[in-house]
């Protein structure tokens, strides 16, 4: 299929509808960045002294890192559990993971008040700070992901020795990656341990670090499935159902454990009353829990639905959506009451987040066209036969 397409269609890149969307978002992103750096954070964001962390932390950082968790999960499955049949989807997952972390770092360069001092975390240490630990882990793990992906690039340029060296070192590299991921995925939850008097009892829990870790694994797997589906549509690849179906089983398990931990946390805080009285927080919780936990767990528990590509993608989408809602509820909804204000991201904040997602997808498309990310080599640049994708 692929070879036929490659021979029929020109390999040359043909701009289409999505290219136009990308260009618009990219230019808007650049415009906002210029205003942000010349006029300050107040000029582009709805952040305030009452609400110092907004969409860029809630979505870009918390979701960006969490949704990249597929990379450490899958490298562990393949290289530590030695389930080599999953090998074909490891490379695109590592690429997605690396781009996810790059996305987070660029977002931080916009969100930090003085981003040119981001390296201060390297020279000024405060080991009592969760943020310090997150900074180091993100820095090191991004490097690990780059090294894990580098053989793909080395192969392209015909450098076989470095590729071989990395192949030799893959076990310690993967262990390092899993260690760093375990630490910072959970630490994103630990960031909120210090605000017991501010975070709403529907979301505050001493188990937040574990909740964040488990939910990242679930949503990370969801992203692997979604990414496979998007690649299928964009590059006319087949969906590796024999691999994705068992992964979805893992996703259900992670979501189930996460759901139980959430309920346990709420019971511990005696906060069920804030759900039943349908307060603002209660309604947000219901949407999050029904759409993001109950529904995907219920659907994906049936083998018949897991084995159907459409249902599988739907289930994965719900898991990712629920994950995003959970992180936004922890970082925004749950913090509003204590702050005494309402926070809604400004159009410019949303533009930056969307622009970054678009840049990430464009780089992914470029990488899979250029390098052997998928087992069958670089995908053909032809987009036109599908038209709608």
């Amino acid at each position, binding site marked *: 299929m692929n070879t036929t397409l490659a021979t029929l269609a020109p390999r040359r890149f043909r701009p289409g509808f999505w290219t136009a969307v990308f260009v618009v978002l990219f230019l808007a992103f650049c415009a906002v960045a210029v205003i942000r*750096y*010349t*006029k*300050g*954070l*107040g*000029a582009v964001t709805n*952040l*305030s*002294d*009452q609400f*110092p*962390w907004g969409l860029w932390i809630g979505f870009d950082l918390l979701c960006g890192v969490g949704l990249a968790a597929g990379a450490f999960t899958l490298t*562990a499955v393949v*290289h*530590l*559990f*030695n389930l080599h049949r999953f090998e074909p989807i490891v490379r695109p997952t590592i690429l997605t993971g690396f781009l996810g972390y790059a996305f987070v770092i660029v977002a931080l360069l916009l969100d*930090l*008040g*003085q*981003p040119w*001092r*981001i390296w*201060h*975390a390297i020279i*000024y*240490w*405060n*080991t*009592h*700070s*969760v*943020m*310090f*630990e*997150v*900074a180091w882990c993100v820095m090191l793990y991004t490097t690990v992901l780059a090294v894990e992906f580098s053989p793909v690039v080395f192969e392209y340029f015909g450098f076989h020795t470095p590729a071989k060296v990395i192949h030799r070192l893959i*076990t310690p590299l993967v*262990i390092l990656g*899993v*260690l760093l991921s*375990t*630490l910072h995925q959970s630490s994103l939850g*630990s*960031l909120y*341990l*210090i*605000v*017991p*008097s*501010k975070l709403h009892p529907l979301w505050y829990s*001493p188990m937040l*670090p574990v909740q964040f870790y488990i939910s990242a694994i679930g949503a990370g797997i969801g992203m692997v499935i979604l990414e496979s589906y998007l690649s299928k549509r964009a590059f006319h690849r087949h969906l590796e159902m024999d691999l994705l179906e068992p992964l979805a089983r893992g996703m259900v398990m992670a979501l189930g454990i996460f759901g139980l931990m959430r309920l346990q946390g709420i019971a511990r805080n005696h906060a069920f009353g804030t759900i039943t009285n349908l307060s603002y927080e209660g309604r947000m919780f219901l949407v999050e829990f029904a759409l993001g936990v109950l529904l995907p767990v219920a659907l994906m528990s049936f083998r018949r639905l897991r084995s159907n590509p459409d249902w599988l993608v739907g289930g994965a989408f719900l898991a990712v959506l629920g994950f995003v809602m959970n992180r936004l509820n922890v970082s925004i909804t749950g*913090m509003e009451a204590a*702050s005494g204000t309402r926070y809604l991201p400004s159009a410019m904040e949303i533009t930056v987040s969307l622009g970054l997602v678009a840049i990430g997808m464009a780089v992914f498309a470029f990488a899979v066209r250029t390098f052997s990310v998928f087992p069958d080599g670089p995908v053909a640049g032809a987009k036109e036969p599908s038209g709608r994708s």
Partner: protein
Amino acid sequence: MGMGLLFDATRCIGCGACSSACKEQNKLPGKVEEALTAYTWTTVQEREGLNVRRLCMHCEVPTCASVCPVGALKKTPEGPVVYDAERCMGCRYCMMACPFEIPKYQWDRPVPVVGKCIMCAGRLKEGKPTACAEACPAEATIFGKKEDLIWEARTRIRQKPGAYVDHIYGLTEAGGTSVLMISNVPFEKLGLKSNLPGEPPAMKTWQVLSNIPDFVAVWAVFLYGVHWITARREEVAKATANGNGRNGQGHGREDRS
């Protein structure tokens, strides 16, 4: 225990001399604002017919100092929680975490820093009281050794039974603070947080962070163990398939698995 401030809401006349003195001392631009901002480090608000000062409480175990990734905020032995603007990269975790919601940010500047009361740390070094305490005409804010201030507050509460709420705000809040307040109206009605734990919030994260070295060691061994077992199993399976692996190096007893 260091130095501290005692604010008595029953004595404050709301003249605002403290806020003006603070602006002058710390060279803060603009007029004194209603609420705290990066340019107004202390202000007097009217609540329940009383005048209440807002300022950094200078915690004994400051949440802001514990969360700052670059250690830009520090508790000094003299009492003040000071801020090093040269280190700060602007993550604003201190603002998010502070139980008293004190640190504020320069949202209007392209090169912003955090603004908060530093208890005139420079003046303290010279043996002088804070600018606000010196400026106060009603002795509503007094400066001194924290233990003396606690004694003074207790005496005032004891001498006039019923004239004060029987609580010194800041004695236990968030693990205790260097700034203490007394009042004849419950503190939550004055806009002060009353739901703060007696244990410093920083302990909650330290419980997790201090376990990381042990956790890393155990998790690394576990992960390598998983790899070793699965790889070994594969090896054994291969050897078994190739005719019981007789040519091996004496691994025979594991062949049964």
